[in-house]
């Protein structure tokens, strides 16, 4: 049942893309993007239902599951579920539960290390600061994995993501003597595990 309905969706999406692409005589590249967006039409519904569910649970938890709060809650949930349509389309992502638990534990340790490090520097007489900027290539795919990577850099010990230029991130470091590459390579590996992305074969070199 599920399989046939998804086939129907695919077929209708393809028809739609043909009718859209041919009369206007679009170049092949844009025809491809049209068919790709048509393909995702079934997913839009799924995302919509998912975001309504998540927002409903959040609202319920925030208001203590009071039924009369839904007078404001229902419009808020529906408006919230429409917000993604106003934003540029984001690529979907999957999370791995095992990766997420490991990531959370590792992240907790790292953020304590980072905070203790900066607190000791703040209280120490000479602060031992040797600030510098370094660049690091962004290898993770665009979207959630890359955004997570750039935000977590700021919470790691001694590093702060300062600027992104194309596929390079500029990192500000409190201490130029700390090695940047191994720390960020480890973060990258852990973010791949978190988002269930395949690990690149030769990263150890």
């Amino acid at each position, binding site marked *: 049942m599920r399989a046939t309905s998804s086939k129907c969706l695919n077929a209708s999406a393809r028809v739609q893309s043909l009718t859209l692409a041919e009369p206007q005589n679009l170049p092949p590249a844009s025809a491809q993007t049209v068919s790709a967006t048509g393909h995702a039409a079934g997913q839009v519904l799924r995302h919509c239902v998912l975001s309504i569910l998540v927002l409903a649970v*959040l609202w319920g*938890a*925030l208001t*203590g599951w009071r039924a009369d709060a839904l007078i404001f809650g229902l419009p808020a949930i529906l408006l919230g579920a429409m917000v993604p349509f106003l934003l540029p389309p984001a690529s979907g992502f999957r999370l791995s539960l095992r990766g997420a638990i490991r990531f959370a534990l590792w992240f907790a340790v790292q*953020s*304590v290390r*980072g*905070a*203790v*490090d*900066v*607190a000791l*520097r*703040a*209280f120490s007489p000479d*602060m031992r*600061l040797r*600030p510098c900027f370094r660049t690091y290539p962004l290898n993770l795919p665009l979207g959630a994995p890359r955004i997570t990577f*750039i*935000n*977590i850099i*700021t*919470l790691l*010990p*001694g590093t*702060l*993501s*300062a*600027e*992104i230029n194309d596929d390079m991130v*500029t990192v*500000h470091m*409190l201490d130029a003597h700390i090695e940047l590459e191994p720390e960020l390579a480890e973060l990258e590996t852990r973010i791949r595990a978190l988002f269930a992305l395949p690990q690149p074969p030769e990263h150890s070199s």
Partner: protein
Amino acid sequence: MQDVVAAVLITTGTVFFIAGTVGLLRFPDIFCRLHALTKADGLGLALIALGVAFLAATPGAVFRIVLIWFFVAAASATCGHLVARYARRSGAGVRHD
């Protein structure tokens, strides 16, 4: 017992907030100051939130506290990045002395 754990967590969290503020005042330039704000205050908030969660003890309240921590952590990392980017592009972070 719970009160003692909560008090220790909240006190430690406050120490990190003080460290972040001391860093903000003492560090030499805007980028180093951002390190102090994002990292030390982030852990300070996490510890205070954890301590309050011990006191609150209802699942709903704990859930709300976790939400607050998550959104503040995400916002502070993003704001830190935006401030640093602005400072780099406009040259505001460069000291001329």
